[in-house]
């Protein structure tokens, strides 16, 4: 059967692996993540904040929208639902619950849903909400029950179930103890089936008292630190977004390994990728007639007999200096194997030995896995404390996965940091920095550069100071991806044109010029001679910005036929440059398949020689 599987490598399988590939690991997909937004739709939610602040409801909808769109980009297979409670109208499967309005049931988010949520935003959104749902009685118990049914109706395997309650009322039932009890019971039922309930409590006059009712509703915090309940209610969109995001993104270990300090001392750790280059997703092939997705199958067969080849009928080869070296497929894998996956501690080095330019791929994050080896967290924590106290990093040899060759990594301690609102900014653990081997470092001959005088440096310092800003890693959106999704959105929703997008990594030239003012000229006077033109120095250096594309075509390089023939006869075609040869090929209507010089020469010789 193994063979059968090997041959049907379908695209679906590959798709699952795309995540985390770059960092050398893929996640084992064990099911889908799901998230239910349970939003209070009572009148209180619609009260506008002071000086034009959006209402709590409005804020919530913005957050829901951003989660929808980010799910579409990063994990479109996750399931999301949006449910309102405390509504006048009811809408739920089987309509068995009053005052619960299932706006979206659990499903993958799509363009339509984003539009739906958009409709609920702002003043118009509040109107629409009042019209379609209204505000009425509240029974959180019913709402939770309804959500439980949503989970129950899902046929797929769910790996994570989360429910977030957005409300600004700390006593939703106004002291009705029966309803309170009902809600608690339902909440504990839900928790029992593996649903995590989080509270996103919003600002209300007089403060939000978590203890009175919701303490028993929400799931206990993961780390027993009771951080979750000490949080102040959110009154800013940004805070709410941050909190939702922190909860919503599921941590998945790229690999679970042992960090071996020595014989028999193994600390179980998980490797997490905290930053992965987001790419445009791969296209899906669709059948032209029906627009339904098609699946692709790749198979290997024998050219002569046409029969499909089993893995045992295939070998791997490389050619060196005309000699073919053949190996079995598993030998090829075996060559790469040095040891079983794991990390092995070699020693410690002071932080300053970690060179900034020793960078070959994004770092990953290390956190103990107490579930695998009991006691891991304690030893890990001790290592972390001591390493950061002494400002050293741990040097390890790391084999991340089976049949991966080893790499050296630096484990750099990172202490936990929280912001004023006690939301974690950086988690505690080690950052794993991949270090280069000798092969990865290229030898450059640095040119001899003159050194600037202190006056020149000081002038530049003024310029630098004028353009200071606070760098934040999440400040820049990727314009390529944003444009791509905007295009898709426009097509999916039949919009006339894609939404405008601001390219955040474009320098704000006018602003910079304005801020610098005369400094630029002063600096230029100090370093550049009169008449210095950085553009004209090399022959026709084209300016990068400015005049539209396409203009920078290379000047035509044609060569008279007789000259070419002379070259050919003398065997000096090789002296011509590739562009000239290409042009000559065009000139004589020679179709060239290659772009290599020799290929061009061969093609030309053949043509002209005949």
């Amino acid at each position: 059967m193994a063979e059968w599987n090997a041959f049907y490598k379908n695209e679906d399988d590959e798709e699952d692996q795309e995540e985390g590939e770059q960092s050398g690991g893929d996640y084992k997909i064990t099911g889908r993540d799901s998230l239910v937004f349970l939003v209070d739709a009572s009148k209180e939610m619609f009260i506008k904040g002071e000086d034009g602040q959006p209402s709590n409801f409005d804020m919530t909808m913005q957050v829901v929208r951003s989660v929808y769109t980010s799910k579409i980009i990063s994990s479109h297979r996750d399931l999301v639902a949006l449910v309102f409670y405390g509504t006048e109208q009811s809408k739920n499967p089987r309509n068995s619950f009053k005052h619960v309005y299932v706006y979206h049931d659990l499903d993958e988010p799509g363009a339509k849903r984003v539009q739906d949520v958009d409709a609920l935003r702002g003043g118009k959104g509040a109107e629409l909400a009042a019209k379609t749902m209204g505000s009425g009685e509240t029974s959180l118990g019913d709402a939770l029950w309804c959500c439980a049914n949503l989970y129950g109706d899902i046929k797929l395997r769910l790996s994570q179930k989360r429910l977030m309650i957005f409300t600004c009322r700390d006593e939703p039932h106004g002291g009705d103890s029966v309803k309170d009890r009902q809600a608690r019971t339902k909440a504990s039922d839900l928790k029992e089936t593996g649903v995590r309930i989080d509270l996103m409590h919003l600002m209300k006059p007089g403060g939000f008292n978590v203890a009175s009712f919701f303490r028993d509703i929400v799931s206990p915090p993961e780390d027993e630190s009771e951080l979750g309940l000490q949080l102040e209610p959110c009154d800013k969109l940004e805070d709410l977004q941050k909190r939702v995001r922190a909860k919503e993104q599921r941590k998945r270990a790229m690999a679970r390994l042992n960090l071996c300090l020595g014989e028999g001392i193994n600390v179980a750790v998980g490797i997490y990728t905290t930053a992965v280059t987001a790419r445009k997703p791969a296209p899906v092939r669709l059948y032209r007639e029906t627009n339904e997705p098609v699946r692709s199958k790749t198979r290997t067969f024998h050219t002569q007999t046409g029969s499909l080849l089993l893995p045992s009928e295939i070998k791997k080869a490389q050619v060196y200096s005309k000699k073919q070296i053949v190996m079995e497929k598993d030998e090829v894998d075996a060559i790469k194997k040095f040891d079983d996956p794991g990390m092995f501690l070699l020693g410690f080095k002071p932080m300053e030995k970690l060179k900034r330019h020793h960078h070959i791929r994004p770092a990953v994050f290390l956190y103990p896995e107490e579930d695998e080896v009991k006691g891991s967290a304690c030893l890990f924590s001790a290592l972390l404390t001591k390493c950061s106290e002494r400002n050293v990093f741990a040097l390890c040899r790391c084999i991340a996965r089976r049949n991966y060759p080893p790499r050296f990594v630096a484990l750099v301690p990172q202490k936990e940091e929280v912001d004023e609102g006690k939301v974690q900014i950086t988690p505690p653990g080690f950052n794993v920095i991949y270090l280069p081997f000798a092969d990865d470092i290229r030898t450059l001959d640095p040119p001899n550069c003159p050194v600037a005088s202190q006056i020149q440096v000081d002038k530049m310092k003024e310029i630098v100071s004028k353009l200071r800003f606070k760098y934040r890693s999440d400040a820049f959106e990727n314009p390529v991806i944003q444009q791509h999704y905007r295009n898709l959105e426009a097509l999916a929703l039949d919009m006339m044109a894609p939404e405008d997008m601001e390219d955040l990594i474009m320098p704000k030239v006018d602003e910079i010029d304005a801020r610098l003012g005369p400094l630029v000229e002063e600096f230029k006077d100090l370093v550049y001679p009169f008449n210095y033109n950085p553009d004209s120095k090399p022959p026709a250096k084209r300016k990068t910005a400015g005049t539209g594309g396409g203009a920078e075509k290379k000047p035509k390089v044609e060569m008279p036929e007789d000259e070419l023939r002379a070259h050919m006869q003398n065997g000096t075609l090789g002296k011509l440059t590739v562009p000239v040869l290409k042009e000559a090929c065009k000139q004589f209507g020679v179709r060239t398949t290659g772009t290599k010089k020799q290929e061009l020469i061969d093609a030309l010789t053949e043509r002209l020689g005949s």
Partner: protein
Amino acid sequence: MAGAKSALVLCMDVGFSMSNSAPGEEPPFELAKKVIQKFVQRQVFAETKDELALVLFGTDSTKNPLAKDDQYQNITVHRHLMVPDFELLDEIENQIHPESQQADWLDALVVCMDLLQTATKEKKCDRLNIVFLTDLNTEASSEQLDVIINNLKKAGITLQFFLPFPAGDDVEGGGDAEGRDPGQPGTGKGLSKEQKSGLDMVKHIMLSLDEEDGLEEIYSFSKAIEQLCMFKRIERRPMAWPCQLTIGSCLPIRIVGYKAVTEEKLKKTWTTVDAQTNQKDDVKRETVYCLDDDNETEVQKDDTIQGFRYGSDIVPFSKVDQDQMKYKHDGKCFAVLGFSKQSMVRRHQFMGTQVIKIFSAKDDEHAGVALSALIRALDELNMVAIVRYAYDRRSNPQVGAAFPCIKQDYECLMYVQLPFMEDLRHFAFPSLANNKKFTPSDPQLAAVDSLIDSMMLVEGDDQKDMFKVHHIPNPAFQRHFQCLHHRAVNPGTPLPPMEPWLKAALERPDVISERCQAPLEEIKRKFPLTEVEKKKALKTSAQIFGKEKQLKKMVHTAAKIIGHGIPSVASIYATRTSHKAQKVPDDPSHPASSEEPDAKKAKGDEEEDEYNLADIAEGSVTSVGSVDPARDFRTLIRKKSLPFGEVCQQLTRRIEQLLSNKNTHYYMKSITCIQAFREQSIKLGDASLYNGYLQSLKRSIPNRGLEVFWDLLLQGMISFYIQGCGISLKSHLP
């Protein structure tokens, strides 16, 4: 145009003194041969265009263009200047033996020079080199030494000597400290008279060619082997990337960038060849597209268009439209967005796979000054430039940081890519400090402290790095070439084990491993670590059934039987299951019914004919029921009261129903159904429904979390799809 190419002559002494050695020591001949082997090996795998010739002296025969009368005797040009290949390696391995003559090594040198000069007249070579391997144990006439040196100088030929002993001054002083490897039989001390005078001559030549570093080109064999052990690291010439650094609209600085650090990959990839013929052309890979229907209807690639997922939607989006609408930019760019504190850019946020060093443009002094001002300003302020970087018009723009970097002999900016918002995942992890369970005690912390003390990889007051990772060649490449070489030279033999030096290079330095023993023991005592017993993903049916041995056995037998496709016995199991199924309430969702079947009941081993049972029930069967769907299915097919397609549909509906209960009992029942489906399909010679259903079932496995069931099914059935049957099932067959 053709780049730098060099020509090199390996000149090896094979004369009789080369095979002399002290007991227990390898003779110089063997060592010299190893040096040559390793060297050629490296050249072959590096696929350089450098050409190489091999000259032997001290040979019994004479074969060289200068040989005349009794001049230049016992010198053989073994191979003329050409690109080294495996043939040469083979020759070195098998054709070069110690011989019994001696030849004047200076004569050999002249032969080499002549060879280089005549051979490179036609070819363009920018480096000419002669590598000399000898023990200098022959009398050499020094009369023409100066003429030779002059000629070497004139032709621009460089020389390298490899000797069995180090050429350091201590040798001359009879200092035997290092000079133990010359191994002169009988003499016991130092070098022979010939060797001494020979060495003087060598030194004279080398110093005349290069006054300063001449002596550095004299190596000892053992040292050379050590260095040559490593395959040449992959070197790539850095490509210059000229651009302009811009600050605002009117402050451009001409710069040039070079990739300084990037993960190097092997140049060659594996190709797939046919196992019998070893021919690449005999194997073809093809990708076909098919619709997601039961028949997996194939469609032509031309009949497909491209689309993208937007959440649950798939948006058709042709390549043309995509190109039209995609993000476009002005191309090559290195524009400052602003400046920020260096501390704001954290090391672990570095993205991308490379570091680019930015220098000022060549031959532009003014740009140099301007860039220097920027570098120094940033350095003094501890700031960093945040820039927009685009390699060219086709590549995606990035945001990154340009750090100032001031070295002793140069200064530059160092560019590293930074993350986009979309790249980041904000994971919150439980606090370690706030959790009392995980807080280490003071003695525990002290133990870690002393571990760190004992394992510091720096030494001395200047904190010298003892373990420079970036000086170690990538072991994966070393191993790769070792295996390739082995297979090329010894085809048909298993791959060699890893070379010990390679393994050792990846280990803790010995000092450290010794020093950390005690602290590690202490850690072991202070930190109890216990592996948690895990319930691994169950793989085999045996494991699934765990302790229920009886059942386990039964399933195994059943699986085996099903696999062999003997339906009558397989169905015994089916019948047996059905007995139990009758006992449990029909509602499969009832949790009480999902207990594992009683082992005792399954024990009765007498054979029952399913048809007996079937006969009894036959009369009443009108559709595929839930109690024993497999039996009902068979009965209905036999009675032909319903069309085949209809019955199959009923059966598959039952299977689906059964599978909605994640319980091994229901899994087994489903398997008997599938078995029955298969067997009846074969009987009727109509496999399309069966194959189609299995295809779709397989596809739905991951979504429904039915992997365990699938594993069970796979184990039970060896041939999965029905083949043959006069129906073309080509698209289903592997």
